[in-house]
């Protein structure tokens, strides 16, 4: 059985029989004839007949990984931010931001490519670049660069700004679990004012099993 989390930029794949995980670019997937038995994600319906809602997959996947109890899991993807809060093995609260304030992962990757920089290798900033969303934040970045500010500092302030956005969106917790592509970005994780524990990129796949 082949499971897929078909995101905007990347597709996470699990071959259940082989217990093999794989990540490929979604654009490459779309050009291929790969089909999934079950899938979730923004482009899932293009590649599977059985599609599961992403937030439901996040809820199921996080319960499989963390068991019963009270916890908050936030998935920050290329395009959107979504979270689910569990209490006593029941869903308590959720939200999903896919438009205003979103496009975070995508913006970071775009900026990394543009400036040829790996943000995960940059020191965290003390000041946040007040950003409403990835797109509007980019205009501020280019303004700062034109003012002569050091690129790495500006990028770190930008990442702190989007971490602040996420923090406010999830109602300012003391601790949360992070899911999604930004789990690998230490700058992003360290830019939060609360404790963050990354769960990796395959949480939603666990929810499809």
């Amino acid at each position, binding site marked *: 059985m082949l499971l897929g989390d078909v995101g905007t930029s990347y597709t996470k794949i699990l071959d259940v029989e082989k217990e093999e995980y794989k990540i490929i670019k979604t654009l490459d997937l779309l050009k291929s004839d790969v089909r999934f038995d079950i899938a979730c994600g*923004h482009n899932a319906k293009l590649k599977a007949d059985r599609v599961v*809602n*992403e*937030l*439901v997959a996040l*809820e199921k996947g996080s319960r499989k990984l963390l068991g019963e109890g009270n916890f908050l899991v936030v998935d920050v993807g290329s395009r*959107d931010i979504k979270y*689910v809060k569990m209490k006593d*093995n*029941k*869903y*308590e*609260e*959720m*939200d*999903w931001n*896919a*438009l205003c304030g979103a496009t975070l992962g995508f913006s970071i990757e775009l900026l990394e490519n543009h400036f040829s920089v790996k943000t995960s290798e940059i020191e965290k900033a003390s000041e946040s670049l007040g950003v409403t969303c990835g797109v509007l934040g980019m205009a501020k970045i280019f303004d700062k660069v034109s003012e002569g500010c050091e690129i790495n500092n500006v990028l770190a302030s930008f990442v702190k700004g989007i971490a602040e956005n996420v923090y406010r969106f999830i109602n300012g917790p003391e601790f949360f679990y992070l899911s999604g592509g930004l789990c690998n970005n230490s700058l992003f994780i360290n830019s939060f004012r609360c404790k963050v524990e990354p769960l990796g990129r395959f949480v939603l796949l666990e929810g499809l099993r």
Partner: protein
Amino acid sequence: MKIGIVGVPPREILDKYKGNDFIDLDTLFDFTDNSKAEIYLPKIYCATIKSIIANALTIKLDLIIFDNGYSKCDNGRFVSEILKRELTVPIITTQNNATRRHPQPICESDLELRKKFDLIVDSVVKDVDKSELKRVEPDYGFWGVPPNDFSLLDLFPKETHVFGWARCMEAKVPQDLELEMMVREDLPTVFYAQAFCSKNSLAKYLAKKHNGLYVEVDDVLDNSVKSKIEAYLLLNKINKKK
């Protein structure tokens, strides 16, 4: 006469024109082109208000009855003034101060949610037969105004009760803020507002207070909002089974 109406004008005004052809200008018809409104309005603006202007510019009307006070919205007040100055068709502006709440059987009926809204909107200008309506025990609530894009309503099951301004419409008290803010504490409810509408403040506040889902939609429904609502309905369904 072909009469365009906006909002919920007072009964006594509508009764004066009984028998005429009423058209609800708040509606997104197949022919409504909201971009037409951009000659008077900013591009980024409430889609329902844009529809009012676009419809008023497109449909050949003999009269417009525009309920433009706090029984509608501030945007409506400003837009009625623009239309008065720019159109040749006569415009009567009203403020609906009715306080007697009529029963709201449509809001709690077993009809599909879209059908509920069709009837609620129809009930503004004509008598709707409610005698055959059956009440349904709700699994969900929908709070808000009639959305610009009615396809949003198709995401909900029949077991959805209507709250917010739409309920005030059926109760014929569009200025009744207390009724507008009424929700059922135990009912998972989606709080909907049209993007760039001041009712977003109420929707966001009530959603937070009652652990509901706040949803803001600009113009037509997109896949992201659709998935978000579906997730909320599914997760609450899973909870109910536990």
